[in-house]
């Protein structure tokens, strides 16, 4: 067992965990942040994507101990109060989700894609960069639309700030 400290969604947290605990299990089982999901055993599906120090990471491939001292953002931490993050709003407005299970990971990956490419995104790039996230419901059609829409919204939102 080890004690670790990190920042999750802007709040300092500490936990006593087994050394083998993965970040996703720290979030779900110890911190009750169940928005981050587990969809596979092999780091293929991306339902567990969170941001560590601003970069998208599959939280099932990271030991919780490796995240010690870092700043982790989960799906629960991106809206500003009642106001959805532009990516969340774009997914809702473009029907970019159905069962909602892959959605948190998809949104966290998508935000990182937009951050890395700025407003310069096209369909081909979005499809290529979403390769690490599997959705079984939407056929990706509306997810791609959502990401492209959000890229514009995020640009505007940054300009406004």
């Amino acid at each position: 067992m080890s004690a670790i400290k990190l920042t999750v969604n802007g709040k300092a947290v500490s936990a006593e965990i087994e050394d083998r605990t993965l970040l996703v299990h720290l979030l779900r089982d110890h911190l009750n942040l169940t928005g981050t999901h587990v969809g596979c055993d092999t780091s293929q599906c991306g339902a567990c994507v969170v941001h560590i120090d601003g970069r998208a990471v599959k939280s099932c491939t990271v030991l919780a101990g490796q995240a010690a001292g870092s700043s982790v953002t989960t799906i629960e931490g991106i809206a500003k109060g009642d106001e959805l993050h532009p990516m969340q709003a774009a997914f809702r407005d473009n029907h970019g989700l159905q069962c909602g299970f892959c959605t948190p990971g998809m949104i966290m990956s998508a935000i990182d894609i937009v951050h890395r490419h700025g407003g310069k995104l096209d369909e081909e790039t979005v499809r290529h960069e979403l390769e690490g996230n599997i959705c079984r419901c939407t056929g990706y059609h509306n997810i791609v639309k959502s990401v492209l829409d959000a890229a514009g919204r995020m640009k505007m939102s940054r300009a406004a700030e």
Partner: protein
Amino acid sequence: MGVEGIGARVVRKEDRRFTTGRGRYVDDIKILGMTYAHFIRTPHAHAKVKSIDSSAAMQMPGVVAVLTGKQIVDDKVGNLICVWAITSKDGTPMKMGAWPAMAPETVRFVGQAVAVVIGETKNQARDAAEAVVVDYEELPVVADVKAAIAPGAPQLHPEAPGNIIYDWHIGDQAAADGAFKSAANIVSMDVINNRLVPNAMEPRAAVADYDTAEDHYTLYTTSQNPHVARLVLSAFYNIAPEHKLRVIAPDVGGGFGSKIYIYPEEMVSLWASKKVGRPVKWTGDRSEAFLTDAHGRDHLTHADMAFDKDNRIIGLRVKTHANLGAYMSLFSSSVPTYLYATLLPGQYNIPAIYAEVIAVYTNTTPVDAYRGAGRPEASYLLERMMETAARQLKVDPAELRRKNFITQFPHQTPVIMAYDIGDFGASLDSAMKAIDYAGFPTRKAKAKSEGKLRGIGVSCYIEACGIAPSKAVGSLGAGVGLWESAEVRVNPVGTIEILTGSHSHGQGHETTFCQLVAERLGVPISQVQIVHGDADKVQFGMGTYGSRSAAVGLTAILKAMEKVETKAKKIAAHQLEASESDIVIENGEFKATGTDKSIALPMVALAAYTAHNLPDGMEPGLKEGAFYDPTNFTFPAGTYICELEVDPSTGKTSFVNFVAADDFGRLINPMIVEGQVHGGLAQGIGQALLEHAVFDANGQPVTASFMDYAMPRADDLPSFKLSHTTTLCPGNPLGVKGCGEAGAIGSSAAVINAITDAIGNNKLEMPATPDRVWHAIHG
């Protein structure tokens, strides 16, 4: 149409919780004192369980219990059942072997559970499972359907000699043979419909909680039909009587058929919860999903089609071997029979059909309904045959289809179904226009000049949704009725709760069902709440599968709404001192026509509950229920056309365009309907190009993770062009047909037809991987 009424593209109510991570799926549930189950599963496809030694495991930290198959049988927990009885040609009933929740003696597929460890933590249960020693004696394995019925094959169940479950037929053999005798042309082919794994993104899970004081169980489960789960767990598995078992299916992360069934893990969790006196949680991992979720498809078919001299189809003969795996899952028997062979006419006027289906046991994961369930298999077979026939007869594939379309409705097929309505030509026209079918030869020539092989493939599908009526399916062997129930509760302040037996696991019922209320009463959907998925809240329901939620579930709500409206109008008339027949409902107001008098819905509701001033003899309150049993299936249909290019040097396929023209009747929310089509197309295209569940000769699954089983990703799929033509379904008052499975039913054939058109030969089976396509091109 109001802004939130029927036909409006209303953004989904449920999306706020899903996009913010506040969905509540089964694995998110924690109960004080909860323990964790980890199943011990056989690594052998066929073996005797000689002994299970759990003594070392019991000494390990956190182990609460190790429970075995022998114990569950000794406690008289029932075997798993298949509820649709099929009768073989010779009049004998289907031959079903026993399927215990955990195997006490014999295992018949890799992954079948033999024992379960209950631990204080998930990891402790998993660690201890490593220390349980199971001694197996391996038995001969048969994983291939043709090998399983060959003389001398290993036998799976003593009840099913030769591994044959049933040898069934439908149609008129003499009439079909007669058609072939007089045929001008005959087209014959063998078609494989490959095995798939449904792979909902949320793995199956269960939380079982036995309350000793009340002798009452609660089960949270990833189910598409919690009420049927409760019924089966009570009536057949001896878990608990219905009033002592609450089944809740909260947010469920996709189903696609695989979550219709009651699986061993739910039964074991419930049983174990009583055994250990504590709540038990089991969450499957993805490998367990590959091993134990019911698989889909897996048909081997030979078919012959007879044409007259004018290229009209005069007969169809089909012989299918269906691999049902090692055990018969809940609805498995119905899928390759009544859900498959009855759709073999497709959109065509085929006067004589004869189909035989031989269902076979093999040492593989059980097979049951997966998105479309039997209808994709029928559509794929028929549409590959139509394309092949067009090439053999040297006519345009679209025109051959058009010539044979059914144009008069209602249309009685020779295999049970009575199609109520449709306009197949309209869908074909729409799709051909959208893809510029006429301009294809020019595009093909241009591609050729660039070294690419371009192909176009048409697929005209029909499906039968909203399986019904109960009396009819009962006469065909179904063990359940296929109606739906609803209750509409208007609260004293005028907000509304809709209780439905349908279950939403991605389909957006919380929005579409509210749209009906918005349309009828003019109240915003924010004032309407859908209650579903809880057997303690909703009295009964049949759940969601087979695209039945709108046609059956929503109609049940409409029937209950009509009763509420009738009573509300009586109250309003009394309050306004007007005649009941003069009351109309507009935008949430009850108005007396010809006057300026009106009363708002909340005041009517309040009057119903204060009961101070109601018509004489009227019962207080404003809530009504309805059970709705449809009079017929609904028949969505459409045309899909795929245009693609094949790189002859690599065999890789690239989409140029994919168009889908569907007729779903009235659309409640076009945005949601389109989303359903997109998802179905992805699954059908996934089958055509990528997905394949492979077992080796020893029954070992070769594709048991996302590393090996190729799931379609964003980069594998095109954007889709959709259009809708509409004939209103006459069988229900809303005119709706169902849209959930269409994409998966119609798209596979369009893709394979396009590739075979591109490469100029028919030597191709699904999935058309680059390797297979390359070999088809280069021999």
